[in-house]
């Protein structure tokens, strides 16, 4: 008789979700689903608002990655105004996005994922968290918190506050970077580099004893999507879309983000508010693709900074064509922290950051605008349709956690097939399944535009839909 296991709630991710694991008649895992069970509906209630308000409104989607929404929304507004923003504004937006990537990746690695590597899968759950990490390696934990603080300070130096800065606007930004702010960021860079390098060394050492996880935690063929520059190098706030497959072959390149709907379809899953995008030409399920740090490093040819490029070369050696293990999202995240720090260091030398020419002004010149940016977790689209007065008639948001939805399901199924034997789910197995989700660092506040912390539930379900076992945490 087929059965289903449910994990609900999933811990150490942002938001509230559950996992269902389906067993077949032989008691073997046949499938798995990651459900997002909260709903807020930003797309609907933003209708009727002026497009110029959208950066400030959509930044409220998430207290963790507001900057990503702020920037993508401002870009959609640029498109509606049909303006080219001043170069200094673009550089400043990029600097803020780099600060966002550094702070978000630092939180994901040190706070949410490192406890598993450092303390071990079998450590008691009450210890397997940042406090356990503090007890085991206080300096590592402290420096991780400070690295996140560093990224937040960049955001604050530009936007005036760490969370929800109403700074990026359609047409540009409100203010430049002060000399004082520049000096403050510069002063903290050496510590940030040291922390990132230490984290990288820690992960590479941990990888030696986590070869099984690298083989099992989301290791499968899929497509990858991310922004790249015109020369194929790493991008985070400009450029065009590139899709590659698992062999590393480019299957679509230099796609203007405004054309995303020609390439991506969206389906819905029963029992989840998380949308399921797929690569249209391959349909479902063949059109599954991944976004975020792993994808960005797979689709780019180089980063363009020395330390990060050296690591990128080592990273690419881990795959045949593309790196296909989602466990290596962690590695990719750390490489992106180093890239971010190098690019921040470079940007601080640019006198344009203090420019006063920061904003283009115009009315509604296009009734449709798409803004795309690389959020820490992956490509973020804001797609607005407005009337002649600039009031929103339609809003479509596609966020990283949605793009990765199919891959997260596949990851959970792969881990469950390996570790789940029968109806019993011991705690270390539960944690491994949850970690499969944590590899993607999903943000459910963004993906359903829902608020709240993220406890998790896992359910084991039989072939006729009967729930055999349920584990609730959080």
């Amino acid at each position, binding site marked *: 008789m087929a059965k289903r296991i449910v994990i609900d709630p999933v811990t150490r991710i*942002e938001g509230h979700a559950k996992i269902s694991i389906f067993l077949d008649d032989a008691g073997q895992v046949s499938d798995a689903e990651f459900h997002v069970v909260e709903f807020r509906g930003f797309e609907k209630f933003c209708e009727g608002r002026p497009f110029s308000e959208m950066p400030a409104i959509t930044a409220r989607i998430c207290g963790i990655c507001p900057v990503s929404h702020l920037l993508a929304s401002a870009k959609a507004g640029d498109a509606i105004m049909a303006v080219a923003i001043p170069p200094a504004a673009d550089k400043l937006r990029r600097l803020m996005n780099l600060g966002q990537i550094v702070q978000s990746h630092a939180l994901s690695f040190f*706070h949410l994922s490192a406890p598993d590597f450092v303390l071990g899968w079998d450590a008691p759950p009450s210890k397997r968290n*940042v406090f*356990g990490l503090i007890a085991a390696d206080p300096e590592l934990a402290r420096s991780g918190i400070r690295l996140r603080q560093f990224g937040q300070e960049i955001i604050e130096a530009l936007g005036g506050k760490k969370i929800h800065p109403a700074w990026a606007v359609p047409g540009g930004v409100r203010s430049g970077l002060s000399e004082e702010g520049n000096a403050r960021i510069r002063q903290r860079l050496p510590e940030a580099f040291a922390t990132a390098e230490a984290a990288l060394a820690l992960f590479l050492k941990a990888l030696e004893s986590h070869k099984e996880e690298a083989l099992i935690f989301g290791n499968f063929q899929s497509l990858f999507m991310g922004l790249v520059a015109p020369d194929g190098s790493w991008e985070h706030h400009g450029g065009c879309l590139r899709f590659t497959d698992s062999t590393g072959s480019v299957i679509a390149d230099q796609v203007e983000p405004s054309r995303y709907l020609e390439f991506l379809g969206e389906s819905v899953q029963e029992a989840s508010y998380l949308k399921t995008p797929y690569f249209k030409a391959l349909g479902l399920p063949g059109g599954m693709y991944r976004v975020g740090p792993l994808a960005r490093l797979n689709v780019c040819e180089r980063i363009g900074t020395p330390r990060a490029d050296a690591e990128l070369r080592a990273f690419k050696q881990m795959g045949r064509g593309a790196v296909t293990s989602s466990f290596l999202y962690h590695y990719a995240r750390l490489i992106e922290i180093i890239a971010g720090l190098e690019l921040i260091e470079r940007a601080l030398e640019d006198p344009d950051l203090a420019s006063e020419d920061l904003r283009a002004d115009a009315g509604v010149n296009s009734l449709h605008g798409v803004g795309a940016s690389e959020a820490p977790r992956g490509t973020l689209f804001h797609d607005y349709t407005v009337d002649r007065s600039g009031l929103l008639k339609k809003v479509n948001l596609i966020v990283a956690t949605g793009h990765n939805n199919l891959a997260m399901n596949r990851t959970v199924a792969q881990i469950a097939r390996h570790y789940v034997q029968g109806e019993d789910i011991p705690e270390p197995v539960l944690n491994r399944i949850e970690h499969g989700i944590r590899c993607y660092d999903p943000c459910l506040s963004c993906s359903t535009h829902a608020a709240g912390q993220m406890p998790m539930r896992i359910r084991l379900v039989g072939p006729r839909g009967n729930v055999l076992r349920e584990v609730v945490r959080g």
Partner: protein
Amino acid sequence: MDSHLLVIGYGNTLRRDDGVGPRVAARVEELRLPGVLTMACPQLTPELADPVSQAGAVVFVDASVEQRGPVRLRRLDPSGSSQILAHAADPRILLALARDAFGRAPQAWMLTIPAKELGFGERLSRPASLGLRDAVRAVRALHRRLPGRRRPRPA
């Protein structure tokens, strides 16, 4: 370590009464009290542990849907639990993080304000509006009681 009083107001300013905590922080900031720093944020995040550890005392200000009647100020100790689940923390966990990661948890208070309306919008309900006024008074009263209150505002 400094002797300043740190006031952290948190909540979502687009969900009516839930935003009363950040508003209290903003009002206190306008008073420019000597030796007082304020922070307004949507939720408590781990990196706040560092400034919390450096404060002489800290007041967390939040809306409470369970609470009826006047604002409530109570002492807060670091959490005994080491459970931390997601990107955000509660005040007691943040105090524990300050103590364990940065070596010090200051004396702390939780100031809660009754919340009645949590729908979309920025307008406070009457109970929350009155609570805002009383909460600012409570912070001022606490500030008067604390040592070092005549020190200049930290840079």
